[in-house]
C-alpha cells in the first residue's frame, strides 16, 4: 500500500507539474492525450477487452508522464548508494531540500530540469525556516499549502478532459482509409466456416438412439455465395465463423440477416433475432444460428461493415 501511495503521489506531482508549470509540457500532455484518444477510437492494437478501447488513451497519457519525468531518474542511478534504504528517512530543512532539488535539476535536460526547479519552488513556498521534513513526506508536504491552489486548479483540467473524451468516443473513417491505402490486400470476407453437432440415428437391438457427431466444415466459396455442401447442410443449428482481411485493425462489424428462415442467437443470450451485428476482432467474428423452418435453405446474408455503417463486402449463405 505504501509503495502504491508513493507511486500515486509521484504521478500526481508529475501531472501537477506538466499542467501547471510548463506550456510545452502542457501541450505535450494534451496533444498526446488527444492523439491517443483519436487513434484508439479508430484503431486497436490487439484483441483486448472492450473497455480498453475506451480507456487505453489514459494509459498512454500516464506513459508520457512516466517517460518524461520518472524514467530519467532511474537511468541516472549512482554506482553506489550512501543512503541505502534510509533515503526516505533523511530529514532536512526546506532550504537544504531546495539545494538538493536544484542540484538534481542541473543533472538533466530541459524538461527534467524544469520539473525539479518547479518541485524546488513548491518546497520554497513552505518557507525556508519551516521545520525539517523527511524525504518520505517531501512529495506531499506542500499539497495543502495555499501556494498549491493554482497547481490543483490546473490539474483539474486533465480529469475533466479525460471524462469528456471517455464519454465521447470519436469514430471516423480516417484511420480506415489510411491503413487500407497502405495495404494492397482487398478488404473482403474470404472464409466462412460452419460448426455444430449433428444427431444421427443408430439402431442398437430393438431401440433407436441418437449419436451426436461434431461437424466442422468450410463452406464452398463462390464469388459472393457460400454453399453448405457437406454434412453442414443437415445441421439444424450451429455456429458460423467468418474471416475477413485482418488488417487494418479498425473497428468493423459483421451484420447477419436471416430473412425469416432462421434465428440468430445473440452472445448475451437475449431473445432470438433475425438481424444481428457482432464486432470483428482481428478479422474474425462468429455468431450462432438456429434453423426455424423445415426448408433446407437458410437464406442468410452476411455483411462486413465499416464504423460509419457503409458496406465493405457482402456474401450470402445457401442453401
Amino acid at each position, binding site marked *: 500500500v505504501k509503495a502504491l501511495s508513493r507511486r500515486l503521489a509521484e504521478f500526481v506531482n508529475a501531472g501537477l507539474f506538466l499542467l501547471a508549470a510548463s506550456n510545452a509540457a502542457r501541450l505535450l500532455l494534451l496533444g498526446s492525450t488527444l492523439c491517443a484518444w483519436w487513434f484508439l477510437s479508430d484503431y486497436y492494437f490487439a484483441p483486448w477487452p472492450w473497455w480498453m478501447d475506451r480507456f487505453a488513451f489514459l494509459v498512454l497519457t500516464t506513459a508520457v508522464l512516466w517517460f518524461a519525468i520518472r524514467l530519467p*531518474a532511474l537511468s541516472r*542511478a549512482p554506482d*553506489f548508494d*550512501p543512503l541505502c534504504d534510509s533515503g526516505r528517512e533523511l530529514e532536512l*530543512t526546506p532550504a*537544504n531540500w531546495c539545494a538538493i532539488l536544484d542540484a538534481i535539476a542541473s543533472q538533466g535536460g530541459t524538461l527534467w530540469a524544469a520539473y525539479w526547479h518547479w518541485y524546488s519552488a513548491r518546497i520554497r513556498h513552505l518557507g525556508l525556516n519551516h521545520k525539517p521534513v523527511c524525504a518520505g513526506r517531501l512529495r506531499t508536504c506542500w499539497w495543502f499549502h495555499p501556494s498549491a491552489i493554482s497547481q490543483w486548479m490546473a490539474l483539474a483540467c486533465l480529469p475533466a478532459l479525460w471524462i469528456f473524451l471517455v464519454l465521447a468516443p470519436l469514430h471516423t473513417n480516417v484511420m480506415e482509409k489510411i491503413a487500407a491505402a497502405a495495404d494492397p490486400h482487398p478488404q473482403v470476407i474470404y472464409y466462412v466456416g460452419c460448426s455444430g453437432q449433428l444427431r444421427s440415428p443408430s439402431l442398437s437391438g430393438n431401440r433407436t438412439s441418437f449419436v451426436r457427431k461434431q461437424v466442422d466444415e468450410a463452406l464452398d466459396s463462390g464469388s459472393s455465395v457460400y454453399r453448405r455442401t457437406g454434412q453442414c447442410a443437415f445441421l439444424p443449428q450451429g455456429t458460423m465463423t467468418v474471416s475477413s482481411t485482418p488488417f487494418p485493425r479498425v473497428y468493423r462489424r459483421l451484420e447477419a440477416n436471416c430473412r425469416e428462415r432462421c434465428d440468430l442467437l445473440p452472445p448475451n443470450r437475449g431473445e432470438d433475432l433475425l438481424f444481428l451485428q457482432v464486432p470483428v476482432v482481428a478479422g474474425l467474428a462468429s455468431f450462432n444460428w438456429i434453423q426455424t423452418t423445415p426448408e433446407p435453405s437458410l437464406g442468410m446474408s452476411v455483411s462486413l461493415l465499416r464504423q460509419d455503417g457503409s458496406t465493405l463486402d457482402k456474401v450470402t449463405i445457401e442453401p
Partner: protein
Amino acid sequence: VEVQLWCVAVDGGGGGTPARLVIRELQGPEPIVLSSDTEQRATRDFKEAIERARKLTQNHIGWPEKKSFEVSIDCADEMNLPLPKFLYGGSHFGAVVLGLFQAVALTAPECVPVHEPDFLRVLQSVCLESVAITACCDEVGGFKPVGLLRQKLAGLSMPALSPRPAVCFLATGQNLETPEGPLPKVFNGLALREVSTPLSAFRKLWLVQTKSLARCL
C-alpha cells in the same frame, strides 16, 4: 546534534575492527573531548590525529564559541565486536574530520564562510551514516594513505554491519596493491573511492546522494 560514520580500528594483531565514530554536541569549555571509554584507549598519535582534525575544521569552516564536541569510538552494536585495547595510528583522522565538518555546519552554520552558501548546504545535507573512511592527515591538511588496507576493508565489509557501509573513502594515491594481491574497485560490496581532501569527499557524496534521491523524491 549527533553525527555518526564508520571507521576502522586495528588491533595489535593487525586485524581490522569496524567501529562507529560518534560526534556529539556538548556544552563545555574544551573545544573537543574524548568519551571516557575512548580516552582510556587513545594513544598519543590517535589524540594528535583528533587535534589535527579540529584545527583543520577550524581553519576551513570555523569553530563555534562556547561549544564543545565529544568524539567517541563505539563498537558496532550488531556484531558486539570488542574494540582493541588501544587505538593506534592516525588513520581515524579522515573520519573525525568529516564528522567535525558536519557537526559544526549543523550546530553553528554561522561559522561557515558566507561566501560559500552552497557548501553549507552540502555539509548539512550529506548523509554520513553509511560512509566509511580510512585516511591519515598530510602536512597541508589533505588525506594521506594508510597501511594495513586489506585488513581494514575486510572489517568494514562484514555483512552483519548495520547500516552497511556503502563506500569507503581512501586517500588519493593509496596503493591498492597488497601482499595478497591488488584490491578491486568494489571490495565485497564496499565501493572504494579516492579523495584528496574533506571538501572533495563531501562534494563526491553530494553528487551521488542527489542521484540517489532523484529516484525516491
